[in-house]
């Protein structure tokens, strides 16, 4: 059972307090997008063994959504950060690089 640090309220939250929200940094495609773009937006997801960027909600806590950078194989957490960003902040990228040199995830590295 994971513990993740909520970047809003500062609690190290137990997994029972959290809702998992799937992959982070998905760009929304609405009207005007072509079928392939829209299909990928709705359904295509990463399934890495290793570095993953995920959405979590501190549902039974402060209610805020945040992102976690995590290793799906070892469950190591590289860091958590607010959800109001378009890409992982530099300090998170650095934290991942320190542990997983040469990592990449979608367009980020």
């Amino acid at each position, binding site marked *: *059972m994971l513990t993740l640090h909520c970047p809003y309220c500062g609690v190290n939250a137990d997994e029972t307090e959290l809702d998992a929200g799937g992959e982070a940094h998905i760009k929304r495609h609405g009207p005007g997008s072509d079928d392939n773009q829209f299909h990928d937006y709705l359904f295509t997801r990463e399934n890495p063994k290793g570095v993953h960027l995920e959405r979590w909600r501190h549902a039974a806590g402060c209610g805020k959504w945040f992102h976690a950078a995590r290793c799906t194989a070892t469950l190591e957490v590289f860091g958590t950060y607010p959800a109001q960003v378009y890409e992982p902040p530099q300090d998170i990228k650095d934290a991942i690089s320190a542990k997983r040199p040469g990592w990449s995830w979608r367009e980020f590295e």
Partner: protein
Amino acid sequence: MSTRLAKQGRLIDRSKQITFKFNGTTMRGFEGDTLASALMANDQMMMGRSFKYHRPRGVVASGAEEPNALVGLGEGARFEPNQRATTTELFEGLTSISQNHWPNLEFDVGAVNTALARFLPAGFYYKMFIHPQPFWKHVYEPIIRHSAGLGKAPDKETKDADTYEHFYAFADVLVVGGGVAGLQAAKAAAQSGAKVLLVEQTSHWGGRAPVDGGTIDGLAPDAWVEQTLTELKATDNVTIRTRTMGSGVYDHGYALAYERLTDHTPGAPGPRHRLWRIRAKQIVTATGAIERPLSFAGNDVPGVMLASAMRDYVVNWGVTPGQRVIVATNNDDAYRTAISLKKAGVDVLRVIDARTSGGGALADEARSLGIRVDPGKAIAKVKGGKRVKKVAICNQDGIGGAREEVACDAIAMSGGWSPVVHLWSHCGGKLIWDDALAHFRPDPARPPLGADGNGFVVPAGAANGPVSLGDVLADAQTAGEAAANAAGFTPKTADAPKGVSELELPLEPVWLMPANADMPLRMKAWLDFQNDVKVSDVQLAAREGYESVEHTKRYTTLGMATDQGKLSNINGLATLANALGEDIPQVGTTTFRPPYTPISMGSIGGEARGEVFQPIRKTPVHEWNDANGADWEPVGHWRRPYAYVRPGEGVHDAVNREVKNARENLGLLDASTLGKIIVKGPDAGKFLDMMYTNMMSNLKPGKCRYGLMCSENGFLIDDGVVARMDDDTWLCHTTTGGAERIHGHMEEWMQTEWWDWNVYVANVTEQYAQIAVVGPNARKVLEKLGGMDVSDAAIPFMGWADGKIGDFDCRMFRISFSGELSCEIAVPASQGLAFWEALIEAGKEFGVMPYGTEALHILRAEKGFIMIGDETDGTIIPQDLGLNWAISKKKEDFLGKRAQQRSHMTDRNRWKLVGLETVDGSVLPDGAYAAGEGVNANGQRNVIGRVTSTYYSANLDRGIAMGLVLHGPDRMGEVIEFPGTDGKIYKAKIVDPVFYDKEGKKQNV
């Protein structure tokens, strides 16, 4: 015979006699006995029968690893099957019954399976019972159901008489195991100042050391344990618990421990079991090691026992399993058993040592006591049914010929020791094979990893591989210091206590006895006692292509059920590896999963049972409803009245009465459960335009609008009336079940997509009671109570206003889910009951009746209004339901808009909503499918529609229904057929879904 010895027994108090029952026979034991030791003291060696062949089985082990001695414990509301006699502490009045036999333990019909053993090989389920197929249902299944299963389930009519609880604990270092390694590791960790929790599964401390002997810092192990315990108890930062089993290790340092508080004193006050939910920075697993059986023919006959268990029974409880004992071994440790027995006055006939070189110092000691040692020998076969009678001895290096028979009544066997690596492995710790000791032990380079990417489990003592007392204590000291250090404390480096024990020579791996045993012997050489798996079964699986150990496990059942292969695992792997011609490490182990030993379902549930299992949400009118005939229906976590049933009336009579009364006089509905969400801010209108398919930003303050919400997939997820409060405030009503979900949905989009928009949402569902006043007399009752102007001019249909009704501050919405003149009136929750009672009182002269959810459903169905969850199921888009009018064409974007343009969503063959009217006026079965022409690819009849809502309408005196039908709106008047599960065919005409007041005049007066 097995019997109590005159002396010995460090754990029993001979001055305190205890009376207990086994299979109805009264027996006696002493305080401190386990059920197993007490049964042996009463010469009850045979304690059950095996799972598959129903062979007589006796106790093999002395602790949690016991596979055979499973009993049904207690009676009535306290009956529990599959309890290990070896871990059941004896108490006055204990009642126990043996398992897996019929009609009784001594004479069992199922034992005929033994004679059929050659027809019940590995995978027999898959081979035997396939053909002929009709046999499965009428012959095989009843037989298997009758004979399968361990023990008997408790009577379904009884409720567990005990209580259970959860306990949340936090520790810097959790130490699992209270043997000398665990005690020393806890001490070493605690000296750093770390908060230490030490748990031990049995009721006593010290583990094996006091039985196995040696000295620690010059003291006897017992004395050292006592001294160390005293120190730990005096240390403020240490918590210790006995009868508490470290059950599982989970992600990021989460661990479960299972404390058995009153199993040994049933009925005592307080909870029976306590589940500790622990967060630890570091976990030390000082879980010891388990001895392996030897695989020889007849190794399951009662009287054959692990060597270590046999000396436990002698030293701890003063009982011996036999009078003339033979010890079979491949290592030096088993000589300790020979020596202990001899010193206790039991005749040890000889030690059969598979090693041609024989043993070391311990063997010399045995010889000096006059015990005969036979090196290079093996047990070919044990003779005897319910007890060991004779043993045939042969050379280890052979097929089992040239046997010498020796009469004896008990056999101690030892195939070496396997570290208990379960807790290390639960969360991903990896193992390495140790060739010298022939076992898997934790690989220090690959521990389970915590959130920071560092290992969080540290094995200690025998659980980590070391065997001798000195090595165990040194390892424990290192482990305790390492755990404290990793938890962020500075350990005080100290020398480990000095453990001294006899020097032991290396063991020699023996996976089969004799090494090349012929087929008849292999068919009687058990690997897994609990699941009746033999050497021949694993070899057969290998021949049939089961190369993966995980597949072999499933095929043969090796290592399943309550003991999860604690004894059989390594022997099984080795047998598989030999059969495949591979090395053991290449074959690997099966996966270790929690719990370590079975834990009670009660402890998992904890306090969450009965009324607190899932607390019920209650509206302010709940108690009134309850007192006035409410037939309760669960809706989400709420309870809503399905109908208000009057004395002498059936539920359906009540529904029909309520439905008619709401149309003819005056109905009241407790609508408090409807979701109420405030959306506020300068960008609230823009935000709601994204949330709803229709336009909400242009709604005028004081007005209401019905809205639809879709997911980004385009599917309809909720509906409800939205009211605009002021320039930047809207109030969104949701369905009863949707309030929390839709609030979360809004928060998600607000926080994660449009986070720069200036808008907030708040769920105020429980702040208000809301009551629908419905029917032709609705306005009359409100006018009678007085207060605000409730005329159509003041509050027209789809308008709302704040004001007073009588003395109540309220907000009135002119909205209607029934098609009648209707006001939904919200008052503060604290005023809800008083307002409801005022309406009931004032409404008497107008024929007031409360109505429930079924009347609500029928009234809306008469009007063709959809219901989320009836007309929708997560695959329905608003266009399917003819709700195109509620989908804005002006808006560039809203959630679901793009999805609704996808080809499948615009397919004209999507089933569409229509009304359905049975030809004979009967009620269509709910969920029935309409049959079409032809068959599909699977040969099933094609379907062209289904019923989504169906009711008897008292107002129309006929069945009415809605359904989704292929090209439905184009087929008005056509009659289609719905085959019912009752065999009847229901014919229904496709009609407009609005059955009542098509012009909508009644709601707009």
